[in-house]
C-alpha cells in the first residue's frame, strides 16, 4: 500500500511543482523542493486531498514534518 501511496504522491507533486522529474521520499521536506513554499504548500495539500479523496485536519498538517509523515497520515486515513 505504501508503494502505491508514494507512486500516487509522485504524480501529485509533479503536477503541483510542474516538475516531471520530482520523486518523493520519506525524509523529503519543503527545503528540498525549490518551489515548495507557504503558497504552493496550500495547493499541494488541496491536491493530495483531491487525489486521495481524503480531508486532513489542521492538527495533522501541523504534525506533518516531512513526506514520510504525510504518507503515514494518508495511509491511516485510507485504512479507516
Amino acid at each position, binding site marked *: 500500500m505504501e508503494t502505491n501511496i508514494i507512486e500516487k504522491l509522485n504524480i501529485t507533486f509533479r503536477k503541483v511543482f510542474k516538475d516531471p522529474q520530482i520523486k518523493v521520499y520519506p525524509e523529503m521536506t*519543503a*527545503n528540498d523542493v525549490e518551489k515548495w*513554499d*507557504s*503558497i504552493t*504548500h*496550500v*495547493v499541494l495539500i*488541496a491536491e493530495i486531498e483531491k487525489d486521495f479523496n481524503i480531508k486532513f*485536519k*489542521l*492538527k495533522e*498538517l*501541523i504534525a*506533518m514534518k516531512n513526506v514520510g509523515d504525510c504518507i503515514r497520515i494518508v495511509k491511516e486515513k485510507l485504512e479507516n
Partner: protein
Amino acid sequence: MLKKIQNACHKYKDNNAFFINGTYYTYLTFAQHISNVRHIIEQNHQADSSKLIGVITYNDIHTYASILGVLFSGYGFVPINPENPIDRNESIITQSGIGIILTSTNYPDLNKLNNIAPLKIINTAQIEDSKIDVNIPDIGEDEIAYLLFTSGSTGIPKGVPISRRNLHSFIDAFFALGYKVDETDKFLQMFDLTFDLSLMSYLTPLCIGACVYTIPSGEIKYTSIYSLLEDQNITVALMVPSILSYLRPYFEDIRLPNLKYSLFCGEALFNDITSEWFPCVPNALIQNVYGPTEATIFCLTYDWNKDIATEKSFNGIVCIGKPMNNMYSIIVDEHLKELSAGEKGEMCLSGGQLTPGYWSNPEKNKKTFFKYNFNGVERTFYKTGDLCFIDQDGDFMFCGRIDHQVKIQGFRVELSEIEHHVRVFTELSQVAAIATTDVIGNTQIILFIEKFTGNIDKLSNYLKEKLPSYMIPAEIKHIAVMPLNANGKIDRNALKKSL
C-alpha cells in the same frame, strides 16, 4: 519607548521577553545581549561614520538584540533580509550608506558586498558579555530610528526613513487605544523583520514586559502560526489577512479562547472571512488596522463588530476606521481638493507618524507630499495611492489601490517594478504583470509578454536574482498580441478576464 523597555528590563528581569525556536529568553538575558551589542558598536563606530547600522535579519535573539542595541546606542537600524537577492541588498546597503553591519550568522553574500563598500562586519553571536547598560541615549527626536526599503517603480528600492519622533508617536498612539495588556500577555511576531508590522509585534510587548513569540525558521508559516497561537496561548496577534485564507478550510477545528486581540493589517480584510473567523476567537476583539510604511506601522484602526459588519464594509472589504492619536487623514481629488463624506478619492495622511520624506529622493518627495491647511494648521500630507471614502459615521472605507501597486503576502509590490526587470531582460516593451487571485483567494502575479520567444526558465531565474520571492510571477504567459485600450495603454482588465 526606550524608557519603557528599560523599565521592563529592570522590573520584569525574570519574565520571558522572547520565545524563539523553542527557547525562552528572559528580559535579563535580553538586556545582556543588548548591552553587548551596544558595547561593540561603541567600540567600532567612528565619529564620521553613518548614523545608520545594518542588521542582517535572522530569527534569533542576537538579531532582536542588535536592533535594540542600535536604538539604545542612539543610531538607526537598516534591516537586511539575507534571503533577498544580493542585488537588492547591495542597493539597500549602497543607498543607506551604512558602514557597520551586524549579523549573527555567516551570510556568505556579505563578502561580495564588501567589495562595493568597505563594511565593518560584526558577528553578534560571538561577543563577550559586557556590563549591562540600558541607559537612554541623549538623542534628538529628528534622528532616524530605522530605514526600510519598499518596492520602487524605477526598479530601485525606495528608502523610507522613520524618525524617533515618528516611532514614539506610534507607540503613544498605540497604547492610547486602550488595549488591556500587561506583562502577562503573549504577542505573536509573524513578520519578516524588513516589514514594519514586525516592529509593532516586538516593540509594543517589550514596552510592557510581555513576551514575544516568533515563527520558527524554515517551516510552513500558517501551520506554525496556528501551532503557536494554540500551544502557547497567544493573547495578541497581528496577522496579514492571507493567513486567514490558508486557515479557512480548518476554521471548524480552530478554537482560540485565550486570544484577546486579533489584529489584521497589510492587505484588504474581507468581511465574509472575518465573520467566519469570529467564532474561532470567541473572546477576542477583531481589529482591522491600516497604514502605509510612510506613516509608521499603522495609523487607522477599526473595531470589527459582527452586528453591523455588512454596513461597515465596502465591496466586502472591512472598514479601516478612524485615525489614531496625533494623526490626520483626508480624502482628496486629483487636484488635491478635499472631498466630503461619501465621495471617493485618494487617502492622504499627516501627523506625528508621517515620515520626513523618502531617502535621498527629492523628486519622489515632490510628487508624493504636499502642504495643506487642515483645521487652521498647515500640515504636510502624504498621498497614499489608496482609494477611500468617509462614511456617515466619519469612518474611512478602503476601496482599493489607485495605481498598480498591489499587496502580496502583505508586501507592497509595484507591478511596474517587475515589468521593468522583464523589459530589461527580454528587451521587449509589451510586458504586463497582472495581479489576480489564486484558488484560495490570495493575490498572485501573472506575467504577460508579447512576442516572447526566449527561455522562460532563464527569465524566471533572472527575476529571482533581481526580486524577492513574493514578487516572482506565479506564471509567465506568452501572448501574440497585447490587448490595448482606447488610450493605447495595455488593457489590464482584458488580460485579467483572459485568465
